[in-house]
């Protein structure tokens, strides 16, 4: 290795440390309000039109799958634009770090959903609780790159996931608020936390 290569690897190491210790500002409060509103609309729609939107557990799951996919896509697209705007030359590294931390949970959610819907439909009642547990775990895993208060939102999802798992297994049915309440409160809390952090960091 030449001296130049050595110097380059030192620069890369400092860049990595800088990105790792910098708070990720790609997740905006507005988009989390949108996801909370989307969850509220889905829950209300299922309450108002139960025959159309939740005649059976698989239809219930399909509705919430659409909500989760739309929310994830919106947050991801917004994160790319915000990161480019707010992190400048560090955007690539910040986005790549965020992807490394979140992709395993997204992959786990996809695999669990596919396996249960495809091969174990009798266990489909467990999906809402499992999804919420995964969102909670995801929150715990990104706590270093987001405001620390995000721990409370993660704990909320973790708590709700456990309760929903028990309720679904005990009652043998799925209620719209089993997904609606955790998502509306959780996403609103995330939006509030991010908004406070953005205001706090504005003077920096």
């Amino acid at each position, binding site marked *: 290795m*030449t001296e*130049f*290569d050595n*110097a*380059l690897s030192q*620069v*890369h190491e*400092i*860049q990595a*440390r*800088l990105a*790792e*210790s*910098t*708070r990720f500002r790609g997740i905006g409060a507005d988009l989390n309000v949108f996801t909370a509103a989307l969850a509220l609309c889905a829950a209300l729609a299922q309450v108002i039109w139960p025959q159309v939107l939740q005649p059976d557990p698989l239809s219930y799951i399909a509705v919430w799958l659409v909500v989760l996919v739309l929310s994830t896509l919106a947050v991801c697209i917004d994160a790319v634009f915000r990161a480019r705007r707010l*992190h*400048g*030359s*560090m955007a690539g590294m910040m986005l790549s770090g965020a992807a490394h931390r979140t992709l395993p949970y997204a992959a786990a959610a996809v695999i669990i959903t596919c396996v249960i819907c495809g091969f174990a439909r009798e266990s489909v009642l467990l999906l809402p609780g499992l999804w919420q547990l995964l969102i909670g775990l995801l929150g715990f895993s990104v706590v270093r790159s987001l405001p620390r208060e995000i721990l409370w939102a993660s704990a909320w999802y973790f708590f709700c996931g456990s309760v929903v798992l028990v309720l679904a297994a005990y009652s043998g049915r799925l209620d719209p608020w089993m997904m609606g309440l955790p998502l509306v409160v959780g996403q609103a809390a995330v939006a509030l936390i991010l908004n406070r952090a953005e205001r706090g*960091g504005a003077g*920096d």
Partner: protein
Amino acid sequence: MAQVTDPSDAPFAFPGLDRAFHEKARLGIVSSLCGHEDGLLFSELKQLCALTDGNLSRHLQVLEQAGFVLIEKTSAGRRSQTRCRLTGTGRARFAEYLQELERVLRGAVDFDGAPDLGWAR
């Protein structure tokens, strides 16, 4: 003297190498701080950068005046402590500095005696 307006006319001008960072001691200070979101104590920085109290204070003052470092006095029991951390602006500007430094080094690695003035773009 003629002013260079297009950066491609002066590929070796390196405008991104901010003087506030481009000094051995200050580069050491900022490199130490960049891995610690909550900053470091003055005594920790002094040890990490092998600087005297006076030298460290002088360099920190330069970085503080540029808006790249925040210096806070905190109290731990009876003793007061000085904590230094990079500001958001400092982080962003240091990232740009590192990117420019990387371009300089890549150019030097690629440079094989036949100058191609396009390498630094």
